[in-house]
């Protein structure tokens, strides 16, 4: 067996290995119930709603990738909380967020999603069990609430506390054990201010005053059920100049609060890192460092001064806490353990690294002046999606059939190689799309289907380039095997160059474009790569092997490589043998005239020709 044939067979074996490998992985995934054999469909085929949001900075600064990631994170939480499952959120380009929701989400969900993030700092008034309090026990007077059993608050060791970052002087302050003072027993203090003054005045009434607990707020607070995940998504930001009731983000408590004292615009940034004790040694816990801008620092100093007074009296008083709300959900409600004037604060309390990072990111995101605007919303009903998929597939089938018929007419038996190559390409592309839909959540859209259909033409073209090259070499008088060899080395270059251009276009489109353009670019780029693979590992090896068969090698009339049809009457068969065509040579071409004539005859003919001129 010659090395050429060996090489060809090896290439085919490689191709077989690749295909078997792709389908084995897919089968393993299917057996383990991780995926299905059919690729995931995008919402324009499966039915559902697509929202395209554009993130715009409100203060003219530029937003970076991490800001966008945070925005996605917040949106994901909002959607999860709204009870919609299997939502897919992706970012495109530098400022676009695409949200795909299956089915038809309610208008409320959509309103919720397109809201921009809101960070609020409110003083805590009450902390209670997450469940809704039965309506009957709702006493309009605030008196029952302050008596909330301290055990209802999260485990003291886990409850975060705030302290200044550069805390040299307040050793005693950060140490909770130092504070329980005798005054703490005066816990019924709130009952001193019962209902007589139910209308607090913003800006005048002390934000920590129980006056903010109006009857409505208490009712709302008691009805609030934080064990219902719907209430953890946030939406209701509350009036910033009035009291508010909300859930903690893990659903472990519900909290009633005073008016907003600081918001996202007061925060400069937030970071997380390992916590240090006063002695400067690692505590093994992580903490979040919050940095305010100058205006925020002033406000925060005022707040902590007031809250720290509560803390000094009773270190378990919930009023010594302030709540940080993101999107109307309390993400943290630490105790104030010091009067913080430096504009930097540390939130600590049993965080692990991940929790600390998450909280820092949430705070940072709340500080980003980001506006989300709804660019488009498109809802495709399941009926329409199904219809489009079906029609798309029909179009593909028709297109494929036309190509098959044309290549059979044009290339005869060689057309079968084209069809085989297209089939192999189809098998590989299908497996890849199914795998990608499993691995990276790719979803096939209608534009993607269009890309696949159009790729039929581009894939078939590389075979045309190759076959035409082989024909050219045959015309130049080479034997079939030599022609395949020569034609390949030249066609390979052309195919690679043109595929490179095509792939480049696909990549540029995929990276820069938005919306459905990406789905199209993706399938186009994928099929271009597969095209190169198939041409090298299938079309060329198969042609080498076929070139050695009698049918092709001797140029059967139907083989598509018949030298007689290519203007050659004699085929050199190697070893000095030449097969002369039985059909009459088509007169007219230079080479044909010459064949069969003696040297003298040819000279005479040439002379005659010369005279004519």
């Amino acid at each position, binding site marked *: 067996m010659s090395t050429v044939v060996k090489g060809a067979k090896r290439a085919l074996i490689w191709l077989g290995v690749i295909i078997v490998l792709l389908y084995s992985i897919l089968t393993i995934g299917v057996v383990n119930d991780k995926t299905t054999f059919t690729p995931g469909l995008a919402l324009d085929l499966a039915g559902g709603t697509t929202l395209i949001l554009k993130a715009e900075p409100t203060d003219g600064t530029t937003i970076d990738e991490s800001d966008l990631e945070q925005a996605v994170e917040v949106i994901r939480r909002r959607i999860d909380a709204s009870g919609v499952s299997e939502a897919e959120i992706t970012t495109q380009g530098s400022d676009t967020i695409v949200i795909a929701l299956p089915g038809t989400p309610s208008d409320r969900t959509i309103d919720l999603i397109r809201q921009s993030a809101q960070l609020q700092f409110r003083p805590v008034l009450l902390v209670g069990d997450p469940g809704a309090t039965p309506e009957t026990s709702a006493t309009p007077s605030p008196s029952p609430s302050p008596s909330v059993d301290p055990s209802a608050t999260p485990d003291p060791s886990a409850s975060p506390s705030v302290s200044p970052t550069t805390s040299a002087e307040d050793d005693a302050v950060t140490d909770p054990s130092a504070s329980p003072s005798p005054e703490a027993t005066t816990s019924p203090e709130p009952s001193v201010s019962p209902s007589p003054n139910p209308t607090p005045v913003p800006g005048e009434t002390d934000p920590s005053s129980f006056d903010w607990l109006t009857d409505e707020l208490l009712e709302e607070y008691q009805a609030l059920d934080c064990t219902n995940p719907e209430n953890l998504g946030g939406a209701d930001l509350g009036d910033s100049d009035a009291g508010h009731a909300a859930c903690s983000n893990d659903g472990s408590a519900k909290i009633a609060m005073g008016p907003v004292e600081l918001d996202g615009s007061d925060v400069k940034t937030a970071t997380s890192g390992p916590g240090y004790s006063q002695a400067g040694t690692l505590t093994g816990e992580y903490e979040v460092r919050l940095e305010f801008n100058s205006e925020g620092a002033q406000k925060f100093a005022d707040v902590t001064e007031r809250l720290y007074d509560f803390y000094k009296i009773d270190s378990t008083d919930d009023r010594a806490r302030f709540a940080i709300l993101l999107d109307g959900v309390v993400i943290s409600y630490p105790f104030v353990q010091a009067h913080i004037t430096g504009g930097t604060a540390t939130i600590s309390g049993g965080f692990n690294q991940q929790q600390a990072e998450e909280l820092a990111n949430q705070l940072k995101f709340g500080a980003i002046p980001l506006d989300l605007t709804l660019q488009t919303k498109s*809802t495709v009903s399941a*009926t329409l999606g199904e219809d489009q998929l079906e029609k798309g597939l029909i*179009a593909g089938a028709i297109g494929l059939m036309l190509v098959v018929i044309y290549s059979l007419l044009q290339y005869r038996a060689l057309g079968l190689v084209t069809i085989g190559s297209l089939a192999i390409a189809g098998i590989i592309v299908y497996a890849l799309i199914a795998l990608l839909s499993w691995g990276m959540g790719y979803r096939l859209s209608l534009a993607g289907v269009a890309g696949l259909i159009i790729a039929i033409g581009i894939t078939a073209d590389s075979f045309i380039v190759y076959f035409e090259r082989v024909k050219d070499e045959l015309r130049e008088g080479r034997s079939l095997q030599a022609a395949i060899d020569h034609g390949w080395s030249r066609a390979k270059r052309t195919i690679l160059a043109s595929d490179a*251009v095509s792939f*480049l*276009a696909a990549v540029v489109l995929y990276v820069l*474009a938005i919306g459905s353009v990406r789905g199209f670019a993706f399938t186009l780029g994928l099929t271009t790569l597969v095209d190169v693979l198939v041409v090298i590992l299938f079309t060329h090896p198969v042609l080498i092997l076929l070139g050695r068969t009698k049918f092709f090698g001797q140029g059967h009339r139907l083989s598509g490589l018949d030298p007689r049809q290519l203007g050659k009457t004699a085929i050199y068969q190697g070893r000095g043998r030449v097969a002369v065509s039985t059909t009459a040579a088509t007169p007219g*071409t230079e080479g044909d005239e010459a064949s069969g004539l003696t040297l003298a005859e040819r000279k005479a003919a040439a002379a005659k020709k010369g005279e004519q001129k």
Partner: protein
Amino acid sequence: MKLNLAEWGNQLHSGERTYNIVGKRRMWLSISAAALLVCILILVVKGLNFGVDFTGGNVYQISDVEDPDPAIAEEVVAEHAPDQEARVSILGENDVHVKIGVVDLEVSRAIEADLQEAYGVTDEQISSEQIGPTFGAEVGKKAIQSLIVFLILVALVMTVYFRAWRMALAGIIALVHDLIFTVGIYALLGFEVTPASVIGFLTILGYSLYDTVVVFDKVRENTENLTAQHRYTYDELANLALNQTLVRSINTTIVALLPVGAILFIGAFVLGAGTLKDISLALFVGMAVGAYSSIFVATPLEVTLRDREARITKHTKEVLELRASGKTDVVVDAEGHVRVGALQPGGHKGQGAQPKRKGRK
């Protein structure tokens, strides 16, 4: 048909039959330039017909309606948004397609609900799309960005690959020609431009260049050892390359247009409107224009540009001088045209060319 094309291909390959496109490049380039001017004029005067996706607005599609009466939809829209003109069309047999301009989200929701009620369908049968007025601009901006980045990258790749920046330049001019031509046809015929059509236009980028690269590759192959021979000029060899790839160009164009035509047919006549029709229409026009330009624009332009290279100018002069002195063995036909054919070194003349053996005829 098949045999004829094959024979025709043979004759083109051997150079027996030649279409002197490069020789008449002034004419072809003038025609193309004039066509481009007309296209630009139409674009400026008439402008493109941008779809709702670009101007912003709302689209509703109600599937499988029992009584697809456009009047029902018009009534609903008139009730909620009196200042909006509803464009209602019936797709296929019983799908109603309603388009209106920009309205508030609340109004749009009310219209959707009322349409559902008026046509008596479930919410599984109604699809809607609300597009903000800035979305189209965004898509357009990104498309132009992609176009510029692509052009720069491709110019670099082609310059490196062909080792001749003039080739890259010719390819890119041909590409821009294709784009303007296609968009011009859109403006002339008033086809609606949607984001899907933009996909189509952008795909033309890749396709047009793909086609051009194949032809240029043959030109490069034919002229690889240009200065080593003094039979033919650069122009003549480039023209030969063009003719030799003609069969491939035709085959490729047909094979590429077949699936696109299939989508266009299904998209336009069965589905009515939407992504499939918009992409395939743009591609169909673009591919046809691309096939034309790779033959009649790219190569003539490439020759015009490269003739300015000192090496080629010198070579052409030498060839023509030699030819005038009658020292070259080129074949000249009755009309005085030089027959440019592939030289066939080692081309086997068959048994007849061999010395006869004794005892054999």
